[in-house]
């Protein structure tokens, strides 16, 4: 039986990355990853660095790396406003290394700021998991 779908949109300030029907989406919410199916309860959440996993109909799927952003979910629609999003397919190892070193610089500059440290550390660990 084919699953019910909902409209999924991923936009970054510079462009529209994905738009279409999806069966499920895993979103790295600020309070933990969560999965969205059709008819999900309305929620607005900020994102932490991580990977958005989208399953489209007919077994197609896509993964996007986001650094920060916001997701708005209501019954028939899931909109991700990402601050910085990239298709995982487009991230080669050079890019990832570059991003990691950038995050490490942030970590070094973070000093006593716990939130900034945690953010940078999570960015690094998420990036490393992609390699």
């Amino acid at each position: 039986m084919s699953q019910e779908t909902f409209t999924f949109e991923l936009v970054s300030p510079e462009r529209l990355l994905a738009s279409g029907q999806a069966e499920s989406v895993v979103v790295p919410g600020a309070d933990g990853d969560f999965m969205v199916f059709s008819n999900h309860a309305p929620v607005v959440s900020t994102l932490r660095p991580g990977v958005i996993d989208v399953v489209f109909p007919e077994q197609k799927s896509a993964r996007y790396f986001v650094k920060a952003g916001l997701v708005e979910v209501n019954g028939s629609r899931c909109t991700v406003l990402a601050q910085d999003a990239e298709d995982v397919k487009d991230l080669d190892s050079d890019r990832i290394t570059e991003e990691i070193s950038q995050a490490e610089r942030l970590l070094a500059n973070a000093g006593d700021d716990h939130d900034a440290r945690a953010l940078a550390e999570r960015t690094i660990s998420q990036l490393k998991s992609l390699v």
Partner: protein
Amino acid sequence: MATLKELRNRIASVTATRKITKAMQMVAAAKLRRAQEAADAARPYAERMDAVLANVAQGFVDQGATAPLLAGTGKQDTHLLVVMTAERGLCGGFNSSIAKLARVDAQALLQDGKTVKIVCVGSKGVDNLRRDLGDKIIDKVDLRGIRRLSITDAESISDKVVAMFDAGEFDLATIYFSEFKSVINQVPTALQLIPPKLPDVVEGDAKDDGTTAAYDYEPDDEAILDYLLSRNLSTQIFRGLLENAASEQGARMTAMDNATRNAGEMIDKLTIAYNRQRQANITKELIEIISGAEAL
């Protein structure tokens, strides 16, 4: 009347100028296409952001909002004008029309006894405003080295604005930029950012979703609102920058098209003057020869 040699030189120089303006027009046309694409690509984000913000903020306004970025400081004494212009000239009235709008507003505010502070984005704004309002310019942002505008550029500006706001340096912030309507029409626009003019909640929205906007907020509604407001700021500034970039190229294209046409007309006129002069010289020499022959 100019001599033949002078005319020849002028024709040569106007022809050279026409080549340059023609080339500039074509470069502007190519850049315009890219700038328009960038502006189009950025539109979905701004639209979604508006929609979410309208939904979320509405609830807060109804409750009597307290977030300063949303409600303002409650005072209206100090105004911050962020004037966004280009880094280059030779684009018709583009820079001066933005500066003019800002200048008129600033002078009206000063008349009312308000304090005005100006941040210039792009060096042409500084050049235009320095004479009348030079002492009001507190900061300038240089975009010269940037080949392709990215959200990071807008973020650095909005970070600056928010830092100033948090330090209590102003009560209201407005950005000035040129809205791109078409290649021949760019409208200088003022947009108030702090406190923001909230987009209206779209009436039909609740209906076609089948749900009313009773959202759960994670981590909590205040964090979401904070995030949204600061993002909204940089998104609006980014939009202003992109619109400006497209407008600048459009204005330059039109200006250079005019310049090319004017140069063409000038060349035609000079060529006629040159030919007349040449003919007159020949006639004069003939008369001299004939009258010399008759005298014999």
